[in-house]
């Protein structure tokens, strides 16, 4: 129990951050036209690939001969990068089409 209290105390700022970020996330996306649901989901999905940073930290701290950590960490970086880069690129492609549509309108 003490250990948990200690964790809660030490990470106070992080926990504050957690609470405010949740609120902000809900506030930002209150009214979205249906047309944008898919691109928004795809863009948010790319942001969720932010775990790549954890994988980078993990690898930077691993000993090169620690094969378990090295292999899984590298796989983690690769997969998360596919998520990030692919996610943003796909979102951009979708939104490009909407732009085309706007030009056709004018």
């Amino acid at each position, binding site marked *: 129990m003490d250990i948990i209290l200690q964790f809660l105390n030490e990470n106070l700022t992080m926990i504050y951050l957690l609470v405010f*970020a949740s609120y902000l996330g809900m506030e930002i996306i209150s009214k979205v036209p249906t047309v944008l649901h*898919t*691109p928004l989901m795809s863009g948010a999905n790319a942001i*969720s690939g932010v775990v790549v940073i954890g994988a*980078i930290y993990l690898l930077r701290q691993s000993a090169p001969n620690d094969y378990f950590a090295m292999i899984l960490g590298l796989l983690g970086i690769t997969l998360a990068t596919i998520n990030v880069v692919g996610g943003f690129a796909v979102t951009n492609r979708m939104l490009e089409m909407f732009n085309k549509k706007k030009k056709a309108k004018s």
Partner: protein
Amino acid sequence: MEALTTLLNYTYLVSIILFIIGLKKLSHPETARKGNLMAAAGMGLAILTSLIYPIEGANNNYIWILGALIVGATIGLGVAKKIKMTAMPEMVSLFNGLGGASTMLVALVEFYNYPAATDPLNGQMITTAFALFVGSISFTGSMIAYGKLQGFLRDSLVLPAPQVLNIVMLVLSIGAGAFLLSQPEINFNYVLILLALSLVYGVTFVTPIGGGDMPVVISLLNSFTGIGAALAGLIYGNQVMIFGGILVGASGTILTVLMCNAMNRSLFNVVIGGFSSSGKAAAGTDGDQVAKEATATDVAIQLKYAQKAIIVPGYGLAVAQAQHTIHELEKILAEEGVDVKYAIHPVAGRMPGHMNVLLAEADVPYENLLELEAANKEFPSTDIVLVVGANDVVNPAAKVDESSPIYGMPILDVELAKNVVVMKRSMNPGYAGIQNPLFFGEKTKMLFGDAKKSIQKLIEEVGNI
């Protein structure tokens, strides 16, 4: 060194701000593209920062890291460029699953690295256990969703007593996590048990949910991945991961709810087996009713001499890649003096906005697209409605049949038009697995075949008349 650390802590802040503004802009049509680029820039900056952020006694392994980043980026870009617009939903699901897998791997290695003698009952370990749990669910769940949308897995694949199985798996996974943490010291075998159970739970969680609900599920799993990333961020005390992850977790949840609202269903209803569990009840209604078949010539004549025609596109249009062909038909008819519009159901296709993306690709002018309510006002005065590969979104059972799994979903009232022509590959029920009484309606005729070929035929026939 100190100065560099301080500076880098603030570049993380810049990344976070870019994420927030990016997401905000992404939810408005005019700024969406800019928003996406801003979020991407934020991510690039965050990755760069994480590479140079001073870590005491780090081995760095830069060559390996850069290699993995380059491989991942190349694959990601390649896939994103090649993928057809129609396969977008499954793509998002696949990407999301990879993000979840990454969270899972990071948590797994962290467990492996904790010195065996530590008492597992502390905040760090609890967080890691949760990250492992959430990441694994997101991974296998997204893969199942991907399989369902790709058609590898059909909805007919039913697990025995899905609801019970689901609860049992959830209890088992949480139990395994609690057991792992209650041990006097870390036992990696128990970690692996938690991993295995969480992976299976992801499968049992998504499998019973019908394919028609997959967009909602993907959005939900997306917010799981965000939460997983935030939990992993707590392990490293990294603000960008916490903030970015939670931002996605929260906005993903809201987006999920918005999507459910568009279908007039509750999230609870979707997760606790909406379509698939009650699909059997409605499947038997086709009885010995016979649908009337039309020829392309009939339809072409009707179209050419109509004053007002409305096209209702659905997933079939996407599958057949017929967006350009339908636009061509629409232009030809417009030249003949027919008033042609498209009626877009918010959840037509496999994702909200799917049809908008598709028709935008074919340069269909925005003002020719009618939204649900506007379209429903137009149908009574419409001479002919051309339903192209849509099914559940025009199913009148949603209005009258309380036993129907889609009861209550707002639909396009195409049956109010003077004539309805349904273009479909076969009489098979739609993705939700429900029969459609519209097909047997008095005013309805069926035109069987691949949407693209049928439309091409119509174009020819209209020209011949």
